[in-house]
């Protein structure tokens, strides 16, 4: 990842010049549009506000840092929440330039509200994985194990994307789960597993990776029956569409894809 980063920045400016640019940018206040460009190395500037699904927190924080380093004078403001919350906020006039959703459904919702510029680009995928406490008290090794009597399984409720994926997997595999709790978010499911209250939970691969040593992940072959697609798009009301497009290009670039795949995301 680091080598890739270096490779791409060789094209650009030296570190010293870059730093000077960042310092200079600190002085400017208004997020004015980029001085519309001489082609090639167009000088981007201003702030791009990115609304991204909660599951993208770690990766987008990294991508934003890389973007700012590569484009001195720019600033990436990040806001993370559930995709449907973000759609509601943008529809109510929140000043977002870029929207990255954890499912196509919420992107469609925003497009239906005529708030998407052009078409959305799919940039990552995510699949479910079984998360168990590190000691794996119920000795889970497959999806079928979750249906055993006495095993306390926590899943997402059908109303949220991870719950919809769980339903699909259940149907496709013929395993029917009787969860002790159906949570409203992946974070809540993960919390029940890390605290040891639940024997197992169904979350995304990336959540298991993000939780580090607090949980153990158990991949299962049936997970490929429910692949979640992550689209990204410029928000129609954006005041800095050039910068928004540049950020989206960075996310979908080779370097961006590498950051995402390091975190467990699949290719679109």
């Amino acid at each position: 990842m680091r080598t890739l980063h270096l490779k791409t920045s060789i094209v650009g400016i030296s570190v010293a010049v870059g730093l000077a640019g960042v310092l200079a940018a600190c002085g400017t206040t208004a997020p004015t549009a980029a001085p519309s460009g001489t082609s090639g190395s167009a000088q981007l500037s201003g702030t791009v506000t990115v609304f991204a699904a909660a599951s993208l927190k770690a990766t987008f924080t990294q991508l934003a840092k890389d973007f700012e380093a590569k484009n001195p004078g720019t600033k990436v403001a990040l806001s993370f929440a559930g995709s449907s919350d973000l759609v509601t906020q943008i529809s109510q006039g929140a000043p977002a330039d870029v929207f990255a959703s954890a499912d196509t459904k919420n992107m469609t919702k925003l497009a239906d509200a005529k708030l998407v510029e052009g078409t959305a680009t799919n940039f990552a995928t995510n699949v479910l994985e079984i998360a168990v406490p590190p000691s794996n008290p119920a000795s889970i090794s497959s999806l079928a194990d979750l249906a055993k009597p006495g095993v306390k399984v926590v899943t997402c409720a059908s109303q949220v994307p991870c719950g919809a994926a769980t339903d699909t997997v259940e149907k496709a595999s013929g395993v029917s789960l009787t969860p002790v709790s159906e949570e409203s978010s992946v974070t809540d499911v993960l919390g029940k597993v890390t605290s040891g209250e639940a024997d197992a939970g169904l979350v995304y691969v990336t959540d298991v990776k993000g939780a580090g040593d607090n949980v153990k992940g158990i991949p299962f072959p049936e997970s490929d029956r429910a692949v979640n697609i992550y689209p990204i798009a410029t928000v129609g009301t954006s005041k800095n569409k050039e910068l928004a497009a540049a950020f989206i290009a960075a996310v979908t670039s080779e370097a961006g894809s590498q950051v995402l795949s390091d975190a467990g995301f699949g290719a679109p």
Partner: protein
Amino acid sequence: MNRQSTSGYHGIPRWVYAVAAVGGLLVVLPLVAMVAKVNWPQFIPLITSESSVAALGLSLRTSAASTILCIVLGVPLALVLARGEFPGQRLLRSFVLLPLVLPPVVGGIALLYTFGRQGLLGKSLELAGIQIAFSTTAVILAQTFVALPFLVVSLEGALRSAGNRYEAVAATLGARPTTVLRRVTLPLVLPGLASGAVLSFARSLGEFGATLTFAGSLEGVTRTLPLEIYLQRESDADAAVALSLVLVAVAVAVVGLSYGRRRNSAEVQA
């Protein structure tokens, strides 16, 4: 009745009314905005769906249970705090009031580490075959935790303002402490106890954070009305707004009942 107050002085500066109006609007306006968002043609189907009815029923049952638990545990606590004399009394009061200012999520985490499977008491309870996590009992515990201070504060206030003259008389007439408590003290503070109980019920009904963290969310078992609203909001904003209105209506009824009761009793005493 307001006008015949004891002092007779009512020189409130006019600007105070203006600021008070702003304060009132801050509370009322969001409620009005919510009512304006209600999808009225769909209102009845939305609030009578199977999951909505299950959530409302669970909320009412658990709130009733936690109110009873609040009375059982809160009356002795209030008595001890108002009438007792022992070292650490002020400290105890501070701790009892803590859930009032504690973020509910924090309460949920604390309960989890007490009654959860890996918790302080949870391990022993599990050995005894009692499992609290993910059960309706967990919901009631969470609600009692957040609602208990309301009962204690109301009742302690009532006990202090009632004074203990009647009790002293009863005692000199030879009544035992338990008899005094039952026949004199409790009837005296009954209005305070009632309004405290109603407030506890209302607080239990609105409990969200501790329940979500500690009890989980399963239809008919742990998914109370606030949790159902939180979940519906993800997929069906209309249903979330409709259910919110139901919760507001119940809360208004409950608080109105409590306030009316207090006013009436004040009039009787005046």
